């Protein structure tokens, strides 16, 4: 079975390679512009707990996190399905001529082509050991302050048992 952390990092790299998405997630950092598409790994002592990390997400930003693996006999060769969540927090749209909202962000994630691929992320093998993802999903959430955020979900079948 693949290390889910490797899958999380591969999703981050693929999302960062989508030019329109990277542009929408770019903000000024202390050392210049930064693309705020980041992975979360469960490292007690190095990372905050997941709920706090989501709560603290700046606007705009995307957080990618492994949220579980389903085992089973899905086909003749797939026995693991890895579930990767993508939390979206949009930027401030006030005064922006062409604001990028959640609808636009999700459309871009699903349909825009990363610079590292010739097809969109839905049809990309983000790792050689992974099949293309099952059809992705997204759902509306409210954070602790009743602010709109969205959680997308990618499910990647693993090819064989690595």
């Amino acid at each position, binding site marked *: 079975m693949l290390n889910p952390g490797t899958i999380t990092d591969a999703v981050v790299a693929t999302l960062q390679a989508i030019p329109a998405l990277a542009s929408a997630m770019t903000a000024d950092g202390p050392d210049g512009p930064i693309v705020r598409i980041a992975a979360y790994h469960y490292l007690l002592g190095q990372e905050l707990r997941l709920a706090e990390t989501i709560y603290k997400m700046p*606007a705009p930003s995307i957080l990618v996190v492994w949220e579980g693996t389903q085992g089973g006999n899905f086909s003749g060769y797939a026995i693991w399905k890895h579930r990767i969540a993508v939390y979206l927090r949009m930027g*401030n749209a*006030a*005064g922006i001529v062409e604001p990028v909202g959640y609808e636009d962000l999700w459309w871009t994630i699903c349909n825009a082509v990363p610079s590292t691929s010739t097809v969109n992320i839905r049809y990309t093998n983000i790792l050689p050991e992974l099949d293309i993802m099952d059809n992705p999903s997204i759902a509306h959430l409210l954070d602790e302050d*009743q602010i709109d955020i969205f959680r997308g979900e990618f499910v990647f079948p693993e090819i064989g048992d690595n």
Partner: protein
Amino acid sequence: MAPNPTLWAALTQNVMMAALNAFPVAAVLIPQTGSGPVPISCIEMEDATAENLYPGVQRSVVKLFVNIAIITPAPQAGDTVTYNGANYVVTGAPVDIYGGAVLKLRIT
């Protein structure tokens, strides 16, 4: 004696405004209308979730109690606030029945 909701609201308003006057903290509201920075006095309130903080790291989510009646233009979602050296976007400014409002801020 039956409780008097109007009197209670007036008393609470007096307490909140007295606290605001006695312990004001400075912030700057930058309206999205482009009308220029507006100095405001505020009191920081408790967050929905406590945050772990490290040296040099600003709070990600801040709530500021303000006397909204004296702030022109009135704060609204999408405005920017500079507070404690960081820039925040106003995600909401719900008012209470005591003459105040809480600016909900998220770091940008």
